[in-house]
C-alpha cells in the first residue's frame, strides 16, 4: 500500500500557546483514519493543517509526495502563492463541523460551485452533482436552499460538495458534532459508504462506535502530540496510555 499523506514535525502555536508540538503521521492510501482526542488537543488544527487552512510554523504535509502549501526554497520551506495553494486544495475535500454551505446558493449550485470555478463545463458539473446528490440521498433537494434542509441533510450536501472535485483525500472535522442525536446516523452512514470506495478518509470525531466499526487506524492526540495509534482494537479496546484510557472512560461513560 502506498502512502497518501505524510506529515512530519507539524508544529504550530498561537501566541504563547503551542497547539501542535511536532506531530509525525503517515496515512496509507484508501484507508480510514479516525483522530480522537479531548477538546483543545490540537486534532482539528492538525486536520486543517493538512489542506493548509492552518499554516504550520515548522514541518510539512505531503500528499502523494507533493508538499502542500509550501515549497523548497534553498535551505528552507517557503509559503506558496495563494493561487497555487487553492489549486492544491482541490485534491483534498474538507467537511466542516458547521457544514458551511453557501446559504445564498441552491443545493445544486453549492455542489457545482467548485468544479465550475475550476473550469468544468457547467453542464457536466451539474450532471455530476446530481449523481453525487443521489448518492447522499438528496436527489429531490437540488433546488432548495441550505436553510430549508435539516442539519443532517445539510451535512450530506457538504459531503457531496467535497466529493464534487473528486479528491483523493477527504477530511472530516467533527462532522456530526453540530447535529441533533437522531440525525447523526444518516451522516455516518454516508461516510461509511465512502469508506469502502477507495478514498482516503481522515475523520476527527467523538463517535467511538463509528471509529470501532469503520476505522482502519485510530490516532489519539493529546496536548499537541500523538499519544497512541493503532488499530481500533488496539487503541479503543486495549489502550496502553493512561491519557487514552482516561479519555475513553469519559467518552464511553
Amino acid at each position, binding site marked *: 500500500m502506498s502512502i497518501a499523506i505524510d506529515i512530519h514535525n507539524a508544529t504550530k502555536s498561537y501566541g504563547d500557546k503551542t497547539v501542535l508540538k511536532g506531530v509525525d503521521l503517515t496515512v496509507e492510501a484508501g484507508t480510514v483514519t479516525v483522530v480522537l482526542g479531548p477538546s483543545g488537543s490540537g486534532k482539528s488544527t492538525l486536520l486543517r493543517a493538512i489542506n493548509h487552512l492552518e499554516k504550520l510554523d515548522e514541518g510539512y504535509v505531503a500528499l502523494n509526495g507533493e508538499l502542500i502549501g509550501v515549497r523548497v526554497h534553498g535551505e528552507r520551506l517557503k509559503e506558496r502563492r495563494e493561487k497555487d495553494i487553492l489549486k492544491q486544495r482541490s485534491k483534498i475535500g474538507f467537511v466542516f463541523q458547521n457544514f458551511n454551505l453557501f446559504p445564498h446558493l*441552491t443545493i445544486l449550485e453549492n455542489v457545482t460551485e467548485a468544479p465550475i470555478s475550476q473550469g468544468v463545463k457547467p453542464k457536466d458539473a451539474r450532471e455530476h452533482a446530481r449523481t453525487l446528490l443521489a448518492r447522499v440521498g438528496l436527489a429531490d433537494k*437540488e433546488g432548495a436552499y441550505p436553510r430549508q434542509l435539516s442539519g443532517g441533510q445539510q451535512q450530506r450536501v457538504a459531503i457531496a460538495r467535497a466529493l464534487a472535485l473528486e479528491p483523493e483525500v477527504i477530511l472530516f472535522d467533527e462532522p456530526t458534532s453540530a447535529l441533533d442525536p437522531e440525525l447523526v446516523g444518516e451522516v455516518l452512514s454516508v461516510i461509511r459508504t465512502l469508506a469502502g470506495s477507495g478514498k482516503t478518509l481522515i475523520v476527527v470525531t467523538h463517535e467511538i462506535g463509528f471509529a470501532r466499526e469503520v476505522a482502519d487506524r485510530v490516532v489519539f492526540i493529546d496536548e499537541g502530540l500523538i499519544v497512541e495509534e493503532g488499530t481500533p482494537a488496539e487503541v479503543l479496546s486495549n489502550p496502553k496510555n493512561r491519557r487514552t484510557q482516561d479519555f475513553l472512560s469519559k467518552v464511553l461513560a
Partner: protein
Amino acid sequence: MTTPTAKRLRTIGALATAAILTAGLAACTTSADATDTAAASGTVTVGAFSNGAGTETQIEVSTVDEIRTTLPQEVLDSGELTIGIGALPAGFPPLAFTGDDNETLTGSEPDLGRLVAAVFGLKPVVSNATWDNLFVGIDTGATDVGFSNITDTEKRKEKYDFASYRGDNLAFQVLASNDWEFDDDYENLAGLTVATSSGTNQEKILLEWKSKLEAEGKTLDVVYFPDANSITLALNSGQIDAQFNPNPGIAYQNKQSEDGANPTRTAGIFSGAGETLDGLIAATVKKDSGLAEPVAAAINYLIENGQYEQWLDAWGLQDEAVETSLVNPPGLPLDNS
C-alpha cells in the same frame, strides 16, 4: 427544475440593482453656463424674458477697434468674454435672474456684459455661480469680468479692479398690510427688525443708523439671510418688519406680488448717494489683469453713444445712471465690507 428559475430570479435582481443605480444615466446634463448664440451683427437684445421687469429692446452696437486692441492678449485669443454672475441658487431680478422662459439667464447685469462684449467684438459667455464662487471664478481666471451688482469697496480692491457703471438706489419693502413709512427719517426705524444683504452699501448705511439709534437708547435689529427668497419668506411670515435693499429688485417683487397672497409695497426710497460716500456698482476683474481699463472704456463708449441710456430704459434703471465709468473709484471703506 428550480435551477433555471433561480437563475432568472438572479438576473432580475441584478437588473433591478443596475436599474436603481443607473436610472437616468442617459439623460443630458444641465449646467448653469450659457453660451449666447452670436448676436446678429451689431445688434444686442436686452430686456429679454424679463417677466415684466424690462422691455425687450434691440440695441445697435459695433466693435470698437481702438478699445479692442487694448484688451489682454489671452482674452483676444480666446475670442470670448466670460461674464460672471453670482445669482445661484436664487437670482435677484431685475438685475440678474432666470427669465420667464424659466431658462435664460437675463437681467440688466448680464445684458450690460453682453453690450461690453459687443464693443470688444468678443462672444459673450454668461456663467452663473454662487456669490462666493463668482469671485473665485474671477480669481482662477475662469471668469473674465463680474457683472453682478457688485459694490465697489476698498476691501475688495485688494484683489480686484473695478470699472463703475451704475449708482445704487435703495428702498424699504414692507407687507402691503403694514402702514409703516420711512419718511426719510431713520428715527422711524426704532424698534424694527430689518433684513439686508451683508457686505453691501445698504448694510453700511443701515448699520450707521443703527449705531445712531443705539446712541439715543433705541434699538434696530439688522438681520441677514442667504438669499432673496429667504428674505421674502421672512417678510411674509412676519419674522422681519422690512427689508432694505436695491430699489429695482424691490420694485420688481412688489409688482409680482400684487395679486399674490402676500402683496408687498415700497415704504420709502433712499439714495445711496446720500449723507456719506456713494457705493458704486462696478464691473469686477482680477487685479492687474489689464481688463479694468478696456471695460471702463467700453462702458464710456456706450454712455457717449446712447446705448447705455437705452439699456437703462429697457430695465427701468434711469435713477441709477452714472455720468461716466471710472476705474477704481473710491469705494466703501475697509471696516464695513
